[in-house]
Each structure stands twice: as C-alpha cells, then as structure tokens.
C-alpha cells in the first residue's frame, strides 16, 4: 500500500446513533452509509464496500439495550462477525472490519485513534 495515500474508510451507521462531523475523518477518505437501523447492515453491503476499495469498514451501532428496534445492534454485530470469518477464509485481515457501539463520549476519539494508528487495514 502506498503510505502517502490516505486510507479509505467506509462507515456504516444507524442514523439514530450519531451525527457525523467532517473533522472526525481527518487523515482519511471517508464514505458514510446511513441506515434507518443497524440491523440493515447486510453482509453483502460490507463486502461490497471492500470491493469498492475500502481499506477498512466500521459499523457503528446503538448500545445493545438502546436499539430502537430492540435487536438491530445484535444483528449488526453478528453480521460483522460473519464477514470477519469470510475475510479470514480468503486471507484478508479480519481486523479490517470492526463494530463499534456508540458512546457519545468516546466514539469520535475512537474513530480518530483508528485512523491515526492505521489500526484497521485490509
């Protein structure tokens, strides 16, 4: 990978869970996908994000008990875990996809850390 190039990040998030600001994606090319509920995170969408060139994919969901549709966050987590197994199987780093439970205090910092530390890379 060309280190001068900004990493590409695709963020899937529940529109109920948080409001994005452009500054939080400093240092990377970000694409965001808003969903009515994180349960709409389908495995195919996550894989297609990688196919479209994402180095990393993040799925940001409401806290499990805070999901408006009660099971959405749990479903999203299961899908992420499933896609991780696929990535492992095909020899990609499964750390390239992560699931973050939204916490108003921590989320922005967490995303920044991830971008700066290049923690997740395909």
């Amino acid at each position, binding site marked *: 990978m060309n280190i001068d190039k900004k990493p590409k990040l695709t963020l899937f998030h529940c529109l109920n869970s948080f409001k994005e600001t452009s500054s939080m994606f400093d240092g990377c090319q970000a694409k965001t996908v808003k969903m009515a509920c994180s349960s709409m995170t*389908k*495995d*195919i969408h996550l*894989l*297609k994000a*990688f*196919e479209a060139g994402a180095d990393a994919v993040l799925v940001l969901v409401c806290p499990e008990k805070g999901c408006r549709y009660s099971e959405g966050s749990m479903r999203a987590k299961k899908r992420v875990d499933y896609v991780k197994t*696929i990535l492992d*199987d*095909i*020899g*990609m780093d499964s750390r390239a996809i992560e699931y973050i439970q939204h916490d108003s205090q921590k989320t922005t910092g967490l995303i920044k850390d991830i971008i700066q530390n290049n923690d997740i890379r395909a």
Partner: protein
Amino acid sequence: MITASQKPINEIIKLIAPYKKVLILGCGTCVKTCFAGGEDEVAVLASALRLSFKKKAMTIEIEEQTVERQCENEFIQEASVKMARNDATLSLACGAGVQAMVKRFAKNIVLPGVNTTFIGIQESQGIFTEECSGCGNCELGIFGGVCPVTRCAKKLLNGPCGGSQKGICEINPDTDCAWHLIIERLTTLGQLDNLKTYIPPKNWDTSLSGGPRKLVREDHII
C-alpha cells in the same frame, strides 16, 4: 426441506480455479431457506470470491443468477443463457439440484458449492434439525410422530439404549434422546401401550440399501 451448508470458501476456490468465467447459480427453494444458496448467499459468495482472487492477483469473471428451483427442468431452463457464456457453473443447490443441472446440460461443467446435509426443519431461527431419512416406509404412527430411524443415533426401534440420561442422547449433549421424546409424546396421547409393541427388523429394501430409488406415477406419464 433439504438442508445444506456452503462449502468452505477455500474448497470452492480450488474447485473453480481452473476456469476464467464462472456462473454462481443459486436456488430459491430449500437452500435459500437454510441460508446456503439463495440469492443473498450467491451475492456474498461472489463478492468474497472476487475479493479473494483480487488479493491473489488472479482474474476471474463471476456472474450471478438464482432460479426458483434447480431440481425442476422448467426453472433450470432460465439459466441456459448465462451457462452458455461461462466456462463452469458453481451450483449452490442441493445434490439433487446439481444433478438435475447435469442431466439438463450434458456438456457443461457443473460444480457443487454446498454440502447437502439432511431432510429437516428450521426448529427455531437459524437452527435446523434432521427429522427424516427418507427410508421409504414411514412408521411414525406407532412412535407418536417422532422418528427413531432418523433421530436415534442407533436406529433403535424397540426402545432406548442404556445411555440416555435426563432426556439427552449419550452421543451429544445437544441432541435429545428420540426415545425420551417418543415416550413423552405417547404419554401425552395416552398411547403408552405402543411401547410394548414389538417392532420386527426393518425392511431397508425401500431405503437406499435397495439401490437408487425411482418413483413412477403412471397416471402422470403421457
């Protein structure tokens, strides 16, 4: 339904590696219901394969299609156009579907993308259980509707073995003892006397032991 589970991706990669253009063909009936080979699974598999080949710097062209039922000629027909322009077809249908394709397209390469597992039901969301062996000679009536041929690990027809404890089969803590279920059910139905009935050796001639089976319906043959 017939249940199946997708083969490990690396096995699939080995199967399709010799070909440049591959059609992944799903089936919209049983394997869709058990999340092995419906439209969604075709899309995920195609995407995963593209990513994998890209990572290995290999090229492959993948097309996707899902027909309603791969085990019926009239639905298979719909796949003919895409099959013709691909080097091979990876079928995500059960073994019957794969072989129906082979009979219909005698010159095309058709590969299996799933392992066909059993005749069963979705007991609860995401959990499938085997219920029937297709032995060709159903005796569920006497067993209160629970099949010991399929659900007893030792196919015992005259009562449970000595290994069952607290309703659980000795071979797997996740498996109910079929005979425990039979007794429970017969108790509910007030038919416990069925337990005393002697069941003679089963005639396996109607099962696979009698060789591949054929069902003929004269009244439907023209």
